[in-house]
Each structure stands twice: as structure tokens, then as C-alpha cells.
């Protein structure tokens, strides 16, 4: 793999990776996207199922595309991703596998908050906020402070706010009085994973 052509370790690189991972999801039929979203919402409350699905997809992707059926929400998602022959449809399996990888980096609290966000219209707003933070905190290898525009914050910007908790669980330090985030290099992994999770879930929830 020619690294320099794959990506650079900044927001542009992340955006390119996520775009590649989510491109196919936008072209899915509405009904299938809604089905996937419902099942992912259930999966986010079921850690063992999520791990089982990720392991199954990994095996399928690495070993010729054949997968064994699973139970519960994991099984339901898997059914959307395989042909009647039991073979994975790569164009669908890869983005879902990528999404599961991102979700697995997040804490259980974050996973549950994302499951709740799926039922609201919060996803896009949260995505924009995380995008703003990742863009403004470049270079990620250095600590920095990022001001948060009020237009991207909810009505109640405080410790109880779901978006606040999502960010705080990435290791970011937040301020209420002057809406601000303190970026630490160690927050990079979880924040990038949160961005990818929000981006892919948003792609699935697009109405058009």
C-alpha cells in the first residue's frame, strides 16, 4: 500500500477514509437503510452481539466472503449483507465492518448515547460539532483549545447534554461558560472514531 496515496494523518485524510467507507451506504434503498439503522440501534445495546457481528464480518471479508448465520440484531444485519448463497456483498459488508470498528472504540456510554441519537435528529448536529473540533485542533499531535460556535451547540450545553458526554468520553475537556474544548493528542483515536461513527450513521439516516 502506498501510504502517501492512502491518507494523511489529518482531518482531510480522515474525511477521505470515512467518505470511502460510507460512499455505498448513501446509495442504498431507503427501506434497507431504515432496517439497518433499527438493527444497529438494537446492536448498540448488545455488546456481545456487536462483537460477534464484527468477528463474523472480519472472517467473511478475509476468507472468501462466506459467513455463518447469527442470532438477534447481529443476524438481522448480516441478512442484509449476504446473498442467498451466504456470500457477503462486499460493497455493503465493508462499510458496516468499518462502522463496527469505529463503534467498538467508543465506550459503552457513548454507544448507548448514539443509539438514543438515532431516534432523534441530533446526529447531523453532533457530526458537525465533532467535525469542527477535528478541523480546528490541527495539528492533532499538540494540545490546543477550540472554541465552539453557539450555532453548533444544543439549547442546554452542560454536563447532562448527550453531545457533551459524547465528547467528554473521548478524553476532551469541555467548558460551559465560554463554550470551548481542550484538545489533547490522546483524544485523537476516540474522537476520530466518534466522527466516523456519526458520519456513517448519518449517511444511513439521510432521508433522500
Amino acid at each position: 500500500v502506498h501510504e502517501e496515496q492512502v491518507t494523511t494523518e489529518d482531518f482531510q485524510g480522515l474525511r477521505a477514509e470515512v467518505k470511502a467507507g460510507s460512499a455505498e451506504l448513501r446509495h442504498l434503498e431507503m427501506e434497507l437503510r431504515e432496517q439497518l439503522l433499527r438493527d444497529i440501534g438494537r446492536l448498540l445495546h448488545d455488546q456481545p452481539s456487536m462483537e460477534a457481528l464484527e468477528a463474523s464480518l472480519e472472517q467473511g471479508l478475509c476468507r472468501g466472503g462466506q459467513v455463518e448465520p447469527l442470532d438477534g440484531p447481529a443476524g438481522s444485519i448480516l441478512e442484509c449483507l449476504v446473498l442467498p448463497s451466504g456470500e457477503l456483498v462486499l460493497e455493503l459488508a465493508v462499510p458496516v465492518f468499518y462502522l463496527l470498528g469505529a463503534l467498538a472504540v467508543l465506550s459503552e456510554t457513548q454507544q448507548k448515547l448514539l443509539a438514543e441519537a438515532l431516534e432523534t435528529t441530533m446526529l447531523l448536529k453532533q457530526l458537525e460539532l465533532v467535525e469542527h473540533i477535528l478541523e480546528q485542533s490541527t495539528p492533532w499531535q499538540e494540545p490546543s483549545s477550540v472554541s465552539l460556535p453557539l450555532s453548533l451547540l444544543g439549547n442546554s450545553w452542560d454536563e447532562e447534554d448527550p453531545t457533551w458526554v459524547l465528547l467528554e468520553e473521548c478524553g476532551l475537556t469541555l467548558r460551559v461558560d465560554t463554550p470551548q474544548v481542550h484538545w489533547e493528542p490522546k483524544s485523537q483515536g476516540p474522537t476520530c472514531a466518534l466522527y466516523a461513527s456519526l458520519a456513517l450513521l448519518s449517511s444511513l439516516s439521510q432521508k433522500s
Partner: protein
Amino acid sequence: SAFEEVVKSAIKELDCRGELIPVDSLRNSTSFRPYSLLSRKLSSSWFWKSRYKCVNLSIKDILDPNAPEPEPECCGRFQISDAVDGNVQGRVALASMDQGKMAGAVAVSGSRSASMNVCILRVAQSTWEVMQQERHLQQPEHKILQQLRSRGDDVFVVTEVLQTQEEVQVTRTHDREGSGQFALPGVICLQGESEGRLSRKKMVTIPAGSILAFRVAQLLIDPTWDILLFPDDKKRTFELPSSSHRREDGQKRHAFSLLTALQSMCAPLKLLTDA
């Protein structure tokens, strides 16, 4: 959660370089003992690493002779004090308790405070050297190691932990205006001074011996075993079979199948492979 708040504060005081990995839930707090083995699968992204997962094995389970591990050394005892005043502001103070210098609880005017005792347990480098010389990998290989090998996951061993020394009750409070705080025992009654505010409390008991955070070293296996006390992203636990680039970055190897699939989906990226 209240547990996470405690972990976060302790790490902030004791580990400014970010080398300790926080335990994310009380449920997992006994799974990361010194010598415990953890696995980590390769990430499908260039931007994050997967989480460490407990495999319910200790290093003694994969080495011969199957002897108990040497006790880790206690290399620091600390008292973490939490003080909260009536204006609902919290802070954490730290006091070293080494060599009998026991610091008292921090006194803050108009408030109460209390503390939690923690210690750092570490496996000395010399212990690893002796173990590496005297003990060999079990044959046949432990079944779990075989599975991790076939999956291409890396294996790590816990080398250092931050552990509670006694049971601690933690209370997390939230008032109606959203100001939050966590408090160690003795400070809960402060809520009475915050007039006109509705408070919600969550209490959790952290048992003695709970692990709050840990540090790992990567295991190298094949043909003998070794540990990497300093991380090296290019090293893999298991040698890759039938590859002329055995020590290449494993993330690339794993990313290959993903990126190959992505390649067909995303022309603008123009992903190329030389595999």
C-alpha cells in the same frame, strides 16, 4: 459514570504523559491485573486503534514451568483527596505517602474533604528478564493463543496497574443547573448548602483491589517469547506465515482486504496496492 470520573481524576494527577490506560467500567476493574494477557485486533482505520480486550489468561498460563508469577513491586502509594465547597466546585489534590510521609486530607475553608488511597504496582524490568531466560513457551501452544494467532490479533501483557487499597464509596451529584461533581466520602452533605437546587446523586462502591488504570507491553511470540517494553507499531506478536515482509506494519496487512474492497467503491482515492 462515577467510576470513570474517579479514574479520570486519578490519572490526571498521576500520569500527565498519558501512559496509563483507564479502565472504562467497574465491571472490568479486576480483569487487568499485573501479568494478565490482553488482545488487540488490528484496526480497519489509520486513525484509531482498537481497544484492549481481556482474554482471561495470565502469562503463567502460556509459559513452562507453570509457576506463580513473582509479586509485582509497589512503587508508589498515593492519597487522592477530593475537596468540594459550597459553591459546587470540585478539585483533586494528591499526596505521596511514600516513606511514611502521610499527608492529611486537604482542608478547604467551609467544606469537608475525604480521600482514597491508591498504589502503583509494577513488574520490574529485571523480573521480565529472568522470566524470559528461565521460562519457555508451553508446547503445544495454548488454545487461546492459537486462536489469536489465526485471527492475527496482537497480544499484550499488563506490566503496571493503579490499584485501590481500600473500599471507596463515590457519590456523583448533579444539580438542576447542570453543574456536576463527584465526591469521595464525607462531602455528600454539601448539597444542603446549595439552596434552591435539585440534586441527583449516584453512588458507587469501588472495592479494595480494583484496578483503575493499567499499562501494557506487547508480547512477541515466535520462535521464543519476548516483551516490548517500549511500543513499536511495526512489530507484531505473531510472525506472519508465507510473507517475505514479516515485520511490516501489521495494520497495512489488515487494511489490505478492506482497502481493496474500498478501492472498487471509491475511485477518487485511487488506492493502489503492491501486494
